[in-house]
Each structure stands twice: as C-alpha cells, then as structure tokens.
C-alpha cells in the first residue's frame, strides 16, 4: 500500500490511485477533474487538480468532497500553493494533499498554505522529510496554520 505523510506522521494511503483511462471511477478512487465533473454523487469523492485547473470549479461542493489532491508535475510550478490557500479560504476542511514531484524543503510552505497530506515521489524519503515540517516555528504572515500575522501577535 502506498504511503504518505498525513497530519505529521507517515501512514498508509487508503485511497485508490488515479486512473486516467477509466470512465467510471470506483468509490474510494481519486478522480481526474473531468471524471469528477461526471460524478453524480460528489459526497465522499476525491479529485486531483493539475496546475492549469483552478479550484474555483469545486467551490460549490467543498462540504462534500473528502479529498483534493493538487498535483505538482514540477516542483518549481507554484500555482498549487495559491490553489490550496483559496480552497481553505473558501471553507474546504477535507484532506488536502500535495502529490507529484515536490521536495521536502517545500513542506513547511505547503503546510502553511493548507496542505495536510504529502505524497512524495520517493517513499523512502518520507521519514526524513518529516524533519522538514519543523524547519520553522515562527512566521510573519497569516496563513492556513496561523490565521494571524505576526504583527497581530507580537508581545
């Protein structure tokens, strides 16, 4: 079973991986956006966004979706960071997973933007990568993990 970092620990992935070729994804399977749009039942669904797919199209169903994966085909394409923030700002509370090729040195930023699960290319890196989640303990900006900017918290 594939493994990933979720809520700060390495765990098994209970979802079935995305299958581009299937017309009818099974329950518990991650959908591409076009597949997901075809689903008659959005409750408990899982969808993966690619960098060119803005999350706004999901906004109406944020209370029903169980998992949103934002894929990073290349780690330098930072669109997913903004997508994550927008999803959280619009009230999404389900699992928000980073997938694809990102690097452990981005974990703090990803978490701050609202990701709570990280599925990395190289699973053998997962344990070591946990360390990078703790790179910073103080931040200037407001973000998903710290709703107040430092200037409202300084004592």
């Amino acid at each position, binding site marked *: 079973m594939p493994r990933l970092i979720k809520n700060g620990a390495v765990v098994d992935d209970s979802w079935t991986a995305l299958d581009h070729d299937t017309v009818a994804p099974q329950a518990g399977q991650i959908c591409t956006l076009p597949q997901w749009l075809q689903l008659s039942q959005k409750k408990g669904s899982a969808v993966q966004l690619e960098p060119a797919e803005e999350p706004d199209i999901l906004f109406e169903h944020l209370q029903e979706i169980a998992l949103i994966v934002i894929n990073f085909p290349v780690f330098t394409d930072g669109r997913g960071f903004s997508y994550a923030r927008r999803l959280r700002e619009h009230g999404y509370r389900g699992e928000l997973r980073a997938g694809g090729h990102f690097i452990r040195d981005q974990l703090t930023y990803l978490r701050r933007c609202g990701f709570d699960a990280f599925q990395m290319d190289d699973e053998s890196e997962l344990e070591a990568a946990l360390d990078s989640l703790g790179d910073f303990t103080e931040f200037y900006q407001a973000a998903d993990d710290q*709703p107040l900017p430092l200037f409202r918290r300084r004592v």
Partner: protein
Amino acid sequence: MYVYDQYDQKIIDERVAQFRDQTARFLDGKISETEFLPLRLQNGLYLQRQAPMLRIAVPYGLLNSKQLRKLADITRRYDKGYAHISTRQNIQLNWPALTDVPDILAELATVQMHAIQTSGNCVRNTTTDQFAGVACDELEDPRPYCEIIRQWSTLHPEFAFLPRKFKIAVCGSTEDRAAIHHHDIGLELLANAQGEIGLRVLVGGGLGRTPAIGSVVCDWLEKEHMLTYLEAILRVYNKHGRRDNKFKARIKILVRAMGVEAFREAVEKEWATLKNGPTTLTEDELIRARSFFDAPDYAVLDRAESTTELQAACDRDAIFGNWVKRNTQDHRVPGYRIVTVSLKSTGYAPGDVTAEQLELIAELSDLYSFGEIRSTHEQNMVLGDVPISQLYALWQHLQGAGLATPNIGYLTDIICCPGGDYCSLANAKSLPVAEAIQARFDDLDYIYDLGPLELNISGCMNACGHHHIGHIGILGVDKKGQEYYQVCLGGSQSKDASIGKILGPSFKQEDMPDVIDTILSTYVTLRQEEESFLDTYRRVGNEPFKERVYAPTH
C-alpha cells in the same frame, strides 16, 4: 532603523539552520543540482563564472555601522577583501566558497542581516529612496512601509515559486528616486484632496528583455489595505503568469496580455476574499513600524548661520567647495546635509568597496551621521545626517580613502553590472567599458558642463545595469561570439519615466569611448540654454545623434 525582536531573530536563525542542512544534503548528494538551485538562490547564492556569488540583503538600503564592520570582516575572512553594491541596494560577495556560505549567513544573523530572497523566483528586496527620511521633498517616510513589506514577503509560503522574480519599490517624495515605474509593483505615497496619505499602485513596470513602464492599477489605496492588495496582485500573478517561457514570465507580460482593465478586475476579485482579513494593517502596527524610523537626536541649528558657515568653508577651499556642490544635498533639518560617498572613482569597478573603506565609512558614520549608512541603487553609499560643521573633516577622511570623487549625478557616476568578468549570464564585459569611459572623460569641468547625466551599462538583456533607463544606456550583446555594445538614448528613471531608444547597430568595445564622445558633442552642439542632455534628446530625438555617430569617417 528597524531592530529585530526575538521573533525576527528566531525566523532568521531558523533560516540559517535550514540552509545549513540543505547545503549539507546537497554536498552529500542527497539533493540534485536542479532541486538545490531555487533553495540556494533564495538564500542569495549563485554559482558563477569564477566562484559562487553571494548577494546579501540590505533591506531598502539601510545599514548601521556594526553591520558594515561585520561585512568588512566577512569579506576579509571569506572573500577577497571587497564587496560590491548592487543596483537593488544589496551587497554582493564575488568569491565565497559554497561550503562557507552557511557560516557566512550565521555571521550575518548576529548583526540582524540575511540573504533571504535576494534571488530566485520570489519577492525580492524592497527598494526605496536612498534619501528617505531626510529628503526635503518627502511627503512621508517610505521606510516603515518597506519594512512592513519586508516582513510580509519574507518566507511568504504562497509566493516562493512564482513564474519569475518579483520586485517592489516604494517612493514617498515628489521626485522619484526609487524608479517605481520600472518595478513589478511600484508604490507611491501620495495625498488625496483631504490631505490624507494613501498609496498609488503601479503594476507591470520592468526592465530586462521587454522594458515597460508600470500601469496604474489602483489610484488610491488606504494604507491599511497595502498588504492584502499586494497579496491579491501576487496571487493573480502566481496563478496566471506564464510559466512556459522564462522570457515572458514577468508580470509586465501578464498585464499587457490581459490589459490593465482585466488585470485590475482579476485583482479586485482576489482582493474581495482578502480585504479586511487579518492581514489588514492595524494602526498599532503602523505606529510600531514608524517608531523605528523616528528622527535621530538632531541639534537645533540655525539655517542661515550654517549656510554662511558652509559658504565660508567652501570659499576657503575650492576643492572642498566643489565636492559639497556635487556630492552633498539639502537636508530637511537646518544645519545638516546629505552626503553621497562616491564609489565611482576611475580604475575601480563601479559600486566596489574594500573592507578598509567599509570600516572607514562605518567609523565616519559613527562620528558624523548617527551610525547609519545607506546603499543606493546607483551603487554609491550615503551618510544621511551630517552636520554642516563636520563636513570638512568628513570630506578629508573620504578624500584620503578615494571616496570623494565629485561626480554624483554626472557622466562618470556610471551604473554598471559586474558583467562578463564575473557573471555567467552576461553576453559581454561591462566593467572595462565603464572604466574606458571614466578614463576618457576625466576632465571634471567638461563633465560638469554636460550637466546631470546618467550613463548605465548592462552586460546582458537581464538589465541589472538598468541600461534602458539611463539617459545613455549601453548593452553588451553577443554577435557571433564577439562582444559588441548597443547604445540607447533617452531613458529616464524619474517620474517622467521613459525607456531609451536603440540608436542603431552595435559597436566594438574599443570604439565605445569615441561613440560616447560623439553623442556628447552632438548634445553640446544642439543644446539650447539650460537644456539637460535628456531635454535636448527629447526635443530633437534620435536622428541627429544617429547621423553623427554613424557618419562615414574621413
């Protein structure tokens, strides 16, 4: 100036530890070159032609004497005993070893300095007027806003992997000394009809391959909304900026492609979610930020008396008098002057400063200018608060150290990037061209007669030497493996911003002093009364210059 509290220090210290670990993993083969690239760039580290180059952040160009001494010490211990002031007011070291960089960053952190986001596709060092807080034409000190932006942009989680680099400048005075029209975002402090001060927001200016002047996206923004509005702009850019072609990835291309109206609408839409949220600035935060830039303990001096005193000193020593005229400026407080320390003496790369000079400037700032120093985007340094009675003593020290070349704002005060001698991006060398021009025009009377003149040189299209906005701009180009130089005329970095027009085919390096000579003598022939070079150029255009420069030789 801004002083770190425990929070700022913690963030900087954690960053040093993070980069130390990243460097160790890289040297251990656990991070690939490609993955290490943005990590090191966002800590100011380039791998260059000769050695790595480390670009140290000087937030909005402000330094204290302790920091300057530390920099001098670092250049001696880890480099070759000199540093370079960049056109973003930062300080560059040209010869550090990669393995030393974590230690250098740790040293910097002990004096509240860092190299965060001085490179990479992220928000870079915010720049401003080198005369902020002391200029006579200032509406409000821009530095508190710069500091607020510095904190907001430092390690911003959402904007560390933008399509391309992102530069912000803030101006708070009538004259624009921060080139805000040529930044990704330019912020201008200005007053409305009720006398309240707010911000005008320009977006999409820039230099590089496609020079552009910024468009007004918001005519009036209340200060409290500054950060949420910036965040909305960055978010539109992060989502929609082009990522398929690095030469079309800057925000100026996006603004042009969308059109200003559509771009503004997109920003407003993003802003709707962010506006009035927790990132909205509080009155307390504005007060706190301003408190770091309160006026120092100025002596109460009589303006008329000190003017007479200065005049007498200038009369006694004409060389001193000339330096006062060329390298110092009026200060908003009676009895004080702003002194520019020239880093433009012939024979030395523009903007280079030795460890000994750094230490001397530190000492002079302690003696004469409240221990503060500014770096300028024109690659000089400034002592902002010098009592008129101390000018002569200060000048003697500067003179003795080669720091008093009386050329500020004149032809030989050249802006120049490190070019092909150091930089691996460069198409051509820029330093020898600067030196040849400085050597040719060594007659001070002639350069004074030419009046205010900005000559800017870049070694490649990236335009670090701001060639498009020099009155005379020189660009190094590669022509079939040979270094050639293209000339453009008529650029301006002021509020009357303009982008220079290319004169014609490029020239060989050895011909450059002659080409500049012909351009200058054409101006001298054509100018009317009090016209500056730029005035004349704007009146007559490129043609007369072109005719003379490309005239067949007899």
